[in-house]
């Protein structure tokens, strides 16, 4: 370990090098006309600015949150997000808790992304994490992560369904909805999530048999392809 690695514990040095390489490659591309000025300025100031993965990322590879752009949750935000993700997707008979499948990291990656759609989501999620913290303090004088399950449920019940939320909970409800969407998207992106939802596949087969008889019977259909 050297000093430069220590200085930025949340961003592994190899990742920074990767961003740097990507930036340099972009600058070297002849005629590359849409290199964002703010990214160039950020690089000049020594900060790796977040750019997307470009139109030709190496796709046949395995990536982790943080590989393309830095994760930006503060430790407090991460703590709240982890607790809330586990309330929304707890450990149960269907499968493990969200946090054990790195769902909070995926949410962090999402709200830290340099793309417009995710940046719009971040405008709801980041203030929302503060809203739910404040709400926990207001009601129970504790952080959301430190509440009992009953206390967490009391807050979540007020904000879980935007259509029914009272006016004072509208902001919280908008946040909860967005957070739940991202968290569930991440949860069901994992093999454990696939098991929980009943997806069977991504395995090479010698032949494709179609739905089993049990399914055909339930639907009242017959297989029409010989």
């Amino acid at each position, binding site marked *: 370990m050297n000093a430069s690695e220590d200085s930025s514990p949340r961003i592994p040095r190899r990742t920074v090098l990767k961003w740097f390489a990507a930036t340099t490659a972009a600058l070297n591309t002849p005629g590359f006309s849409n290199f964002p000025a703010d990214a160039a300025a950020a690089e000049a100031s020594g900060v790796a600015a977040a750019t997307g993965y470009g*139109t030709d990322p190496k796709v046949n590879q395995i990536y982790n949150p943080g590989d393309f752009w830095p994760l930006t949750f503060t430790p407090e935000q991460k703590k709240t997000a982890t607790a809330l993700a586990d309330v929304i997707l707890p450990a149960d008979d269907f499968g493990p808790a969200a946090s054990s499948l790195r769902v909070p990291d995926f949410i962090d990656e999402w709200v830290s992304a340099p793309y417009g759609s995710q940046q719009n989501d971040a405008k709801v999620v980041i203030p929302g994490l503060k809203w739910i913290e404040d709400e926990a303090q207001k009601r129970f004088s504790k952080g959301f992560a430190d509440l009992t399950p009953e206390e967490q449920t009391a807050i979540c019940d007020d904000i879980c369904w935007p259509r029914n939320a009272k006016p004072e909970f509208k902001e919280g409800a908008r946040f909860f909805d967005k957070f739940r969407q991202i968290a569930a998207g991440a949860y069901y992106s994992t093999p454990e*999530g696939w098991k929980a939802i009943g997806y069977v596949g991504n395995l090479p087969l010698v032949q494709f048999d179609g739905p089993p008889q049990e399914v055909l019977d339930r*639907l009242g259909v017959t297989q029409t392809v010989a």
Partner: protein
Amino acid sequence: MPIIESKQAAQEYDVIIVGSGAGGGQTAYTLTLAGLKCAMLEAGRDYSPEMETAMFQAPNQAPLMGVSTPDKPFGFWDATVDGGWEVPGEPYTQASDDPGSKFTWWRARMLGGRTNHWGRISLRNGPYDFKPYSRDGLGFDWPISYEELEPYYTKAEMLVGVFGTNEGMENTPNSPPGVLLPPPKGRAAELYAQKHAKKAGVPIVSIHRAVLTKTLDADTIPAKLHPGDKKAQKIVGDAMRARAACFWATPCGRGCSIRANYQSTTVHLPPALATGNLDIIPNAHAREVLIDGKGKASGVLFIDKTTGKEARVKARAVVLAASSGETVRILLNSKSAQFPDGLANSSGLVGRYIMDTVGASLGGQIPALENLPPHNEDGAGGSHFYSPWWLYKEQLAGKLDFARGYHIELGGSRRMPGGRSPVSADSSEGAYGTRLKEEARRYYGSHVGFSCRGEMIPNENSFAELDPDVKDKWGIPVLRWHWKWSDHELNMATHATKTFAAIIEAMGGTVRGTVKTGKDAIDFGGSIIHEVGGALMGADPKKSVCNAWNQTWDVNNLILSDGTAFPSNADKNPTLTIMALAWRNAEHLIEEMKKGNV
């Protein structure tokens, strides 16, 4: 493999082919197997599906769980490289900001072009589709008939491998016995839709897609494709043996590393390269076709994107297959004293009559499909069933308020989840905790979607021209698009969404969202990514750009072998027809070169 840099190019070739997609790939295949020396210019980079495809990656192994972004509009693993609705540094413009006039242009910049990603739906045009004007007085007839193109459809199907069934439906041709590969079994949602759509009068049958449901018969097919030519048979047989059968997993849109579906890069280009007669120059962006003193095409001027400098390559004939819009652009940019309005444009018709496909869609949620026992429905990486147009009789009897047909592509399966939440807040009354997981399991696989793919009739208001002001990053003028749907297309979109609602109702389901009509229902021009036309083939040099073999009337050693020459755009997706035409054009070019006419 002779993938070369521009400075390694030979002094002169027999033929230069611009573009490496379905049209360019088929052209290279046919010409090089016949012994012609060819150079292929491809604007994008070299690309290897065998090495680069993300076959089994799960969404939690991709940034943003693989969802679409401006960098990768069809998701992280989409086979499209350096492409999309926008290509950095290569803009296009719109003549009008009226939403109804919008044209959105999907381009791929890579070896193999859009065939790396495409949906693989491979339908033959029917006999009516070649003579639409004669049937209803609208648009234009083709200068060829179905019977003339039929042998090439058969050859293309045998070469690339297409599964499906012969249903004998009106204007939906059967293939000769033994040509199609076995269709895959129906999935739960597809079978359920098939049964209940009958109540809405809609037949649902096996679709045709370019996926190997079993390996190709490499011992017999090559002799049928290249009778009497042992060398060609050997090369093609070897290429067929290098393709595995589909293993019923992994979405085809990512591409296929085992070569089980059609991509130009896995099917057309390997045998063409194996002949030793093909040099592929990637990163070579064709700017204009060069003309000699006699008004013949003599080569192509291109930008070597690795250096940004201009380079030239010479040949006895030039085939353009850069995709319709881009082929039009190259022609219009090939201006000279002899051809001041662009090449092959004495009719003034280059860029005119561009067509896309009519798109409109509707989704539904089907309670009968809820909570089904888990089972594997990955299947052949895309749809297994569709509805060919079924109302020819009603249309003929004047019962419909639009002239041409559409087919229905249906989606519904227990495909790989991830990225987007399987449950929306509204459908589950705010469920969280274990109840959310119950809801996810309940709704998973219960959603169906129906899309209209319909025929657009060519019109005066849908065309492309050079923008007088805007240039790309190399200073080449770009295209400006004009677009307008006629009432035929708008009424078709209305008919389609109402039909979809009826099917969803017949399935006992509920429509998601509202059933839109007319201009609210139809997708933007270009968004179905079936742009064809712009240099129509015809029988009269004053009223068309190309003859029946897609030689341009003005320059007979210049051939257009993508969709540019289509005089109509049947509801059938265009690519199989592009291949069949390209094959036929190439055979004719070989004959003409032998005779010394070209």
